């Protein structure tokens, strides 16, 4: 399959080796972070309408400390990509992610943002995880507000368990061809062969 084994997690220390003060500080900081996530909605399609319903009074996103919607990436912790992303928007989305300060998380909301959805065509990115790292995928077309809330609560659990000692969490890495994690684009195409790109495919029979 061309998939290389994951590297040994040498950087991650076990909890028992960390001093009591550090773990308590982690717990305190994470408690603060998870209850005051500032989301930035990157809404491009119908999922954004469902996000608005989530933020409105009935489902009330403010209960999760998301009172403040940040419409500037520089004052946001959480990018919620709601909707399909065309290739023309790909550099814009990556730029917005780079503009967000650490720590930052990302929720991919809906089928289109997670995998391209029904838009398996020439213009749409097949999943935003090919552009930016994603923490939680919320399935649905579009997901119901309950689904998004569940995804947010999953992310809160993830934030809760983060540790400052784990340096790999906050390091932004460009894929290095020398590293074990690097997969050549040709291998990715090979893996996705039956469902991936095919120049033979056309509906007109030409």
């Amino acid at each position: 399959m061309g998939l290389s084994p994951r590297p040994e997690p040498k950087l991650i220390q076990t909890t028992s080796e960390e001093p009591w003060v550090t773990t308590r500080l982690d717990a305190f900081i994470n408690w603060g972070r998870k209850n005051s996530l500032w989301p930035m909605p990157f809404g491009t399609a119908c999922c954004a309408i469902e996000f608005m319903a989530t933020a409105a009074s009935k489902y009330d996103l403010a209960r999760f400390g998301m009172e403040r919607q940040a419409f500037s990436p520089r004052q946001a912790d959480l990018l919620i990509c709601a909707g399909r992303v065309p290739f023309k928007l790909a550099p814009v989305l990556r730029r917005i992610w780079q503009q967000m300060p650490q720590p930052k998380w990302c929720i991919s909301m809906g089928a289109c943002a997670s995998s391209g959805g029904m838009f398996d065509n020439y213009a749409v990115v097949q999943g935003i995880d090919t552009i930016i790292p994603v923490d939680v995928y919320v399935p649905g077309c579009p997901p119901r507000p309950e689904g998004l809330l569940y995804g947010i609560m999953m992310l809160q659990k993830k934030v809760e368990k983060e540790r400052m000692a784990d340096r790999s969490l906050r390091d932004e890495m460009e894929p290095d061809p020398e590293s074990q994690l690097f997969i050549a684009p040709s291998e990715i195409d090979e893996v996705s062969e039956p469902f991936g790109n095919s120049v033979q495919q056309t509906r007109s029979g030409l």
Partner: protein
Amino acid sequence: MSGNGSFKPVVAGSALVAGAPSPTTPRKVARTGTHPNPSADAARAQFGDVVTRVDVVWGETTVVVDQSSVHDVIQWLHDDEGQRYDYLSDVTAVEYRDLERPLEVVWHLRSLPFRRFLRVKVAIPRGATLAVPSVWDVYKSADWLERECYDMFGIEFTGHPDLRRILMWEQYKEGYPLRKDFPLRGRFSRSEQLRQALAANPEARYSKDELTIAQALEDLPADMRRRLTSGERTGE
């Protein structure tokens, strides 16, 4: 305003055609056999053999004209006092699966004073150069419509002031997506498509100069110009 009993809506064209009954929405229109738009006969009388065919389907008239003189026909439809097609609602193209059938470029014209709709078509035979004259000098709204048609079909509109891609990015190399020989997922692999898309610099394409209305300021009405220069919002 609507509660006021003396309010009478202004009906476009009612003053122009004296004695004519107020136009209503046609019902139960037959697929064929209805009368063509009077503009079709007028165009035939004016241009003769340039009009090669007139079709009426579902009460909508299609006029097929010669490729070389389509600009003259549209100019005349716009300028003539008896036609006054003052609104260009769409410019698009049609390619058929049948390899024998020519590719067609379509203009949708609407006459608000006379409440008429006319579809003007040009057939470009297979193998011929995909080029038709631009009607940008007649309708300014043709600017983006022709750019979209060029982007999706690769039809060159000669005389267009700024003919470049509008939906796909300008460096797009894979061809023209709505052509029948274009594969649904594009010609390049997914990784190559993503690499090319991410290589683009967003600021390079969406420059402030392009978004500003500074260049068009002189063409605006005086009061709008005054409000814009004083920083006041127009509120449309």
